[in-house]
């Protein structure tokens, strides 16, 4: 139960960060959108790089150092490359990821985002059912 409360608290922090970016800059905290457009030179790119710096640097600063939950088997490099390609390509094609469509889009009550979330949850469930189940450790 303590684990679930910790997860809820972490989620609230993610929600607060997303809300603050919207309340302050009027922008959606969608990580895939920010990352894929930061490279385009515009007056919008400085804040995007600042957000990415905070996300990458913050992740390193807060990292717990512990091994955490170990997967039951190592994963081939090719699998990680394929997964990264699909996530990058799909998030740009579908205009968002778990943050832009999930955290922000559902918060904005966007029908488009709801469709996206239901779709990527469904293919995520299906993919794990077919491909990844055996390496998942007991929670």
């Amino acid at each position, binding site marked *: 139960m303590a684990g679930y409360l910790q997860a809820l608290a972490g989620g609230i922090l993610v*929600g607060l960060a997303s809300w603050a970016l919207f309340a*302050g800059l009027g922008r959606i905290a969608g990580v895939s959108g920010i990352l894929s457009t930061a490279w385009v030179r515009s007056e919008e790119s400085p804040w995007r790089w600042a957000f990415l710096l905070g996300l*990458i640097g913050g992740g390193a600063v807060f990292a717990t150092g512990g091994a955490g939950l170990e997967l039951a088997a190592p994963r081939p490099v090719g699998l990680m490359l*394929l997964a*990264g390609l699909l996530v*990058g390509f*799909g998030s740009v094609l579908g205009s968002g990821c778990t943050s832009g469509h999930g955290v922000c889009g559902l918060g904005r009550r966007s029908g488009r985002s709801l469709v996206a979330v239901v779709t990527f949850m469904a293919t995520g469930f299906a993919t794990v059912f077919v491909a990844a*189940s055996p390496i998942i450790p007991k929670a």
Partner: protein
Amino acid sequence: MMSKDVRMEMLRLLLALACGMLFAGGLVLSEMTQPARVLGFLNVAGMAQGPFPGRWDPTLAFVMGGAVLVTLAGFAWSQRRGATPWLAPVFSQPLRQAIDLRLVLGAALFGVGWGLSGYCPGPALASVLTAGPDVLYFVLAMLVGMALARRLV
């Protein structure tokens, strides 16, 4: 003495930096930076293994629930009548409105990559400096995938 414009831009950058850090802190605290947690959630078949929730890991639902509770209330309050952002002239709205094949196909491909790896863009970036080679490969390929999609569509 800094001009008003320069000071405003500095404030904008500081806020974006702080939001990125807070976002990362939330992901680390909720353990969404650990692919095993995410894969455990996507593993719905685990529900059938033992008394509920079995081997299924509901953690991600608590994270998403907490985050969306905040954004539901916060976004509505921020956009109350006559309000503007603290540091910008207007709230920008996403350009695309249609629920079309592009949206569904993109989300579907995204979900497959997510299910193969347990990583999506936020957690991947938040752990790219500390979590070893797996996430590094993932992030490099993700950047290539993004660039491809931007060129092709």
